């Protein structure tokens, strides 16, 4: 069995969500054909199973119209079905499918798709498609939590490839990728200083794509550093229609998170509700996370628990998963369940340590430090009600004097 085929199947069936698995299995049947074609260009693809599964998935509502993953699968299916000997067409389609999987946060599956694309590559393939593949493959590594090791070299590889192809946009995107990595390591100061420099440099070679992504990283770094006005200023720039829809959706998320911290809960709610309409799961899940935080802050326990249950088994990027555990911890602490809050923070801490996300490690430690000591609560169980009752009785004795004082 081709190792890539096996890896994709494991990724598809390891999700733990029946609907997501059904989606990925459609892709699996196409991926098998791509693996065969990488070895033998004369292979006649067997797309009938994938087609049937795709139709069934549409009937079941697993795919909805406008779903970007569906568009990418349909394109890959067309490329295989055309039976043209053009590898360029197939290469382009599988890279697009990899990008769609990245946006659905199916990182293992996306990574396999990009690896198969390597096998399909020939010099006839478009240089831009190859740069695109290298760029997203790097993002899969970085956002997937592998900020140590190979991900360190991917920005350089992308920059070298882009320079050879005389593509300045991807040279800039290589810088953006590097900056993404720096931010996840927790060096916010370097992220901000470098980001502002890169933003200025983009004036000589404008690229709305690189600019949008840079603004996104900068806004996130400013937000994390507690510089909310700058975070909102950058997020507001990202809402401009000239940027890619993903940049605008990221702006909504960043605005929502910052507005929550500023106490503008209604405006934040609007931002998160808009995210629920996003065509990619990544942003829909961000919307759910934001709403979960809002419910916790408004002490809406039932709604919080509903959002928590919904998000518990959803695939999330490692940083989003840590964020989820932070929100869960804060929520449970708000509702007085300190032990459960502690468990959630412990999960976040373990993930942050495992991935080497410096900022998240410190943030989790801060959260844990603010939790009341559960042992202390237990020790006060016998005395606290007694003291409370005594003081309340004293206050009642002096109620008249207090009222006069406050008049």
């Amino acid at each position, binding site marked *: 069995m081709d*190792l890539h085929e096996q890896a994709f*199947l494991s990724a598809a069936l390891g999700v733990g969500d029946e609907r997501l698995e059904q989606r990925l299995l459609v892709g699996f049947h196409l991926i098998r054909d791509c693996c065969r074609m990488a070895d033998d260009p004369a292979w006649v693809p067997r797309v009938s199973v994938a087609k049937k599964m795709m139709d069934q998935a549409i009937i079941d509502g697993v795919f909805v119209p406008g779903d970007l993953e569906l568009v990418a699968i349909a394109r890959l299916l067309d490329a295989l079905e055309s039976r043209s000997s053009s590898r360029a067409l197939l290469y382009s389609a599988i890279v697009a499918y990899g990008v769609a999987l990245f946006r659905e946060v199916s990182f293992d599956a996306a990574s396999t798709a*990009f690896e198969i694309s390597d096998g399909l590559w020939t010099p006839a393939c478009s240089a831009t498609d190859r740069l695109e593949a290298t760029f997203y493959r790097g993002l899969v590594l970085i956002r997937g939590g592998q900020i140590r090791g190979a991900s360190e070299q*991917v920005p350089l590889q992308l920059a070298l490839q882009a320079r050879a192809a005389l593509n300045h946009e991807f040279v800039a995107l290589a810088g953006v990728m590097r900056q993404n990595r720096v931010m996840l390591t927790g060096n916010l100061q370097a992220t901000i200083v470098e980001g502002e420099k890169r933003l200025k440099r983009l004036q000589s070679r404008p690229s709305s794509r690189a600019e949008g992504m840079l603004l996104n990283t900068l806004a996130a770094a400013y937000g994390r550093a507690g510089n909310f006005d700058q975070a909102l200023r950058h997020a507001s720039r990202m809402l401009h229609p000239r940027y890619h829809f993903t940049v605008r959706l990221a702006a909504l998320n960043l605005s929502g998170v910052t507005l929550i911290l500023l106490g503008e809960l209604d405006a934040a709610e609007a931002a998160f509700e808009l995210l629920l309409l996003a065509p990619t799961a990544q942003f829909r899940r961000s919307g759910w996370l934001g709403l979960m935080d809002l419910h916790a802050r408004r002490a809406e326990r039932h709604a919080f628990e509903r959002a928590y249950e919904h998000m518990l088994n959803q695939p999330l990027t490692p940083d989003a998963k840590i964020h989820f555990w932070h929100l869960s911890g804060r929520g449970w602490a708000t509702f007085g369940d300190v032990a459960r809050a502690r468990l959630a923070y412990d999960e976040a801490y373990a993930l942050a340590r495992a991935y080497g996300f410096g900022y998240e490690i410190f943030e989790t430690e801060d959260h844990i430090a603010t939790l009341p000591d559960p042992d202390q609560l237990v020790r006060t169980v016998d005395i606290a009600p007694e003291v409370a009752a005594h003081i309340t009785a004293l206050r009642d004795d002096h109620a008249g004097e207090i009222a006069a004082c406050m008049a």
Partner: protein
Amino acid sequence: MHGMTDSTAPRANSASTPQAADLSRATIGTLLDAVFVDRLAHATANTARLRDLASFDLDALCDVLVLDPRRLAPSTLESSIVRRHVEAHVPCVYYTATSQQALRSVVAASEVTPVRLVLFDVDDDPTTFREVISLAPRHAHTNRLRLAMKDALHPLLPSVRVTLDTVIRRPEQFFDAGDVALRAGLSRRHLDRLLTAADLAPVKNWVVGARAWHAAHLLVCGRHSVAATASRLGYADSKALRRHLAAVWSVSPTMLSCGDADVSLLLDEMVTFLRTRENDEADAASS
């Protein structure tokens, strides 16, 4: 070195191809439902011997295994027979249905590394199935090297890792180090630098090593003659083949084909060859 001929399976149903001739001598151990066995028998055109795994003696080994992973339950007699075959590096093909439950069993049966997954009613047409069975020993041989190098390749850039894996799998696609660098999307110098940083041999070793590993399969396992092996690997004559085998194992092709070469030992030396940097070679030569 152009024209390596046995890498791509023959597309015609010709019984005179070397692969079909190999198949005619093979014993295929099966762990399948009756309807699956019928398809397999049709595909092999009754030239190979099909035997149910349950009928195997404790020491007997077949040439190829064809299993439905749904039937692989732990602690059954069949499972222990399969385990014994896996330990003996007998190639294994999975043959199962397209249902989600069947595919789940493919993922669950992780202790077996099948060379190919054949889906019922999808790719079990006689021609394809016959090709899969006949190429299984070669794929299994290749997989041994891939698995041995897996950990060493892991820290590399993804594109480099995939390219080197392809070099092992499909050596005919790469004629020199430049081809490998082109496929990895890097300059040759940069690629060699990355390999050095990862304590691996330069690209040229990989090109030579992959070809030599393939030659070893033909000479040791396939029992082909030296001339036939050189010809099938696309060498102009057997001199270049001799040079490559000498570089990797310090043996002549005749020694490989005549003697009872231990494939595990060859594998160990191949791994060393692929992990030896040029400086190491120079140091070894000077000492």
